[in-house]
């Protein structure tokens, strides 16, 4: 009986492991000139944040380059599982394997050495990798800055809130850009900054937001996918509003009601660039920055709230700032100097 039980438990564990990941594919007609792209992500393709942005970018690139891209993805890939998944993709002849997260760096570098004929990519990172590894780095301080201008202008209590995940990668850049944006229009504004310590703990994110709202914040933002929890908490407030790091937040009911503006990573441009480089024989060794200057970001106001909340002056200020970002990269090169303890 114990043997039977052991087998049942083993099956149960195996089922659970199987259930915790999923794999889908969509493809163009395979041909000699088709680039096969595989995406490995920590969360899901519909997380209204980091992972969805890349998935949406690849599918948009497929529309921009009809018949050029064959695509497959694997969700909920822990770092320890990503290596075996990537090997499977290599065995299936994929040309480019994107491990979407800085946590996959060591796995990617190890795989790149083992399979020099395959291109790999990971981000966020500004490092220049080996000859078959691309990196990409969203310079998110630009989108954070725009949201900061809006928050600093619209706050009535002179208190704004920011719910971050961990202080690294593009979240750190977005958050510091937000602080700079608020200070640029409202130097006396109190900026409440707190981190949850997790990219995916929605409950803690909502708790942190609730705490900041209780302390008087009436304009809120958050970075990474955990921000959805903070947005949900903001929706409970009768007065507070939200500015978002991801346009996907506008598709939620609370985003429609509370999110005045949001930005998005235009990963489609990155994917198109990667495809072109691979076709021209470049397999890696480059970092692709993402900013307004190279079309790496999109920014939109929420049409449902624009008339009520966005004055012509505010809109002009935001558009003027976007024009400055488009004109030259690195406008906010001092973003890393922001020290939260001085706020």
């Amino acid at each position: 009986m114990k043997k039977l039980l052991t087998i049942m438990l083993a099956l149960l564990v195996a089922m659970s492991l199987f259930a915790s990941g999923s794999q889908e594919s969509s493809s163009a007609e395979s041909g000699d000139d088709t680039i096969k792209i595989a995406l490995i992500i920590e969360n899901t393709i519909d997380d209204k944040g980091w992972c969805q942005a890349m998935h949406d970018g690849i599918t948009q690139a497929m529309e921009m380059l009809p018949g050029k891209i064959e695509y497959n993805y694997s969700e909920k890939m822990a770092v320890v599982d990503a290596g075996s998944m990537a090997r499977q993709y290599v065995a299936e002849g994929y040309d480019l394997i994107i491990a979407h997260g800085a946590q996959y760096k060591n796995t990617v570098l190890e795989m790149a050495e083992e399979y020099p004929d395959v291109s790999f990519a990971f981000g966020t990172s500004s490092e220049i990798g080996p000859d078959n590894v691309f990196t990409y780095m969203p310079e998110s301080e630009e989108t954070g800055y725009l949201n900061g201008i809006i928050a600093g202008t619209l706050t009535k209590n002179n208190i704004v809130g920011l719910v971050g995940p961990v202080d690294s990668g593009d979240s750190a850049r977005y958050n510091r850009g937000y602080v700079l944006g608020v200070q640029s229009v409202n130097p006396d504004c109190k900026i409440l900054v707190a981190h949850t310590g997790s990219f995916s703990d929605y409950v803690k994110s909502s708790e942190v937001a609730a705490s900041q709202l209780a302390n008087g914040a009436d304009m809120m933002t958050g970075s990474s996918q955990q921000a959805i929890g903070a947005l949900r908490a903001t929706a409970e407030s009768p007065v507070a509003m939200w500015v978002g790091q991801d346009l996907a937040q506008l598709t939620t009911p609370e985003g429609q009601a509370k999110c005045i503006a949001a930005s998005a990573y235009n990963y489609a441009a990155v994917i198109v660039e990667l495809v072109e480089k691979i076709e021209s024989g470049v397999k890696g060794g480059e970092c692709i920055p993402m900013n307004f200057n190279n079309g790496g970001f999109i920014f939109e106001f929420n049409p449902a709230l624009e008339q009520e909340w966005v004055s012509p002056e505010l809109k002009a200020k935001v558009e003027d700032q976007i024009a400055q970002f488009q004109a030259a990269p690195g406008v906010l090169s001092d973003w890393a100097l922001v020290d939260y303890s001085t706020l």
Partner: protein
Amino acid sequence: MLAILTNMLSMCIPFSVALLLASIGEMFNQRAGVFNLGCEGVMAMGAFIGMLIPFAAGGGGAVSEWYNVLGFAAAAVLGALLGLFFGVVTITFRAPQGIAGIGLQMFGVGTAGTLFRHFVGGTQSIPGIPDIEIPLLSRIPFLGDVFFSHNAVAYLAYLFIPVAWYILFKTPWGLKVRAVGTNPRAADSMGINVSRTRYEALMLGGALAGLAGAYLSIAQAKMFSDTLISGRGFIAVALVYFGHWHPLQIMGGALLFTFAQTFQTQIQSMGISFPYELAVMLPYVLVIVVLSFTSRNQTTAPTSLGKPFNREMRT
């Protein structure tokens, strides 16, 4: 300063409810001698089914409060069934409780995530249940915000604490539970059906864990994702040790842990120069420190905790 303190304390009650319900459920399990590490998985399933019912009824829009009630009821029933399943594995088949608990945790989290993707799709929110301001009492300065402005389930959860105490210490069934967790052989010789009592405790514990998960998805976060529980099931298990298997002390532990959470958030938001990584760790460090100092006092621990009972064998 008083306003900051009021804000921090006013969040302790609503934010502690999920931990409180899950740890009281785990307390019943452990008092009966069964160590259920699968609490996290049961909470995940409760959170999923609890959210699914109001979501399916309203598509994410407003629904009758009865759908939320139905969500909580379904979560409790599903939790009880998972407790029953865990009982079959650990009581009838006498599988190692630690390993079986880890299996249940993985099964619950994985299944809830998979079913969520199938039936709902991506991260979705629901209106959930609103806070209720108790007339007159909620207007009392300080006390009104701290005690009388929360959602209905938070009030019910705290009202359940004395009920749990009464069940455990003042009813014949509670005596049976404590007996089978302390000395099952003596209990058996006194005519108590050890297996049946343990099954009943596991079902009650499972129902409470299911309710705890549903609280997170319906009353607190008002959404579901497969990372919603994020280790709270394991914290609930730790709180049982923290509270020495006593409902009132467990309640104190849940409140202390939640206060530490809100305190660390406050430290960060106030811009105090303190590494946020350490601030985030603060509640967990607190639990470890308190456990270290109190673990010597094991007089209240169920002495047969984690030991399968086989009436045919001498031990």
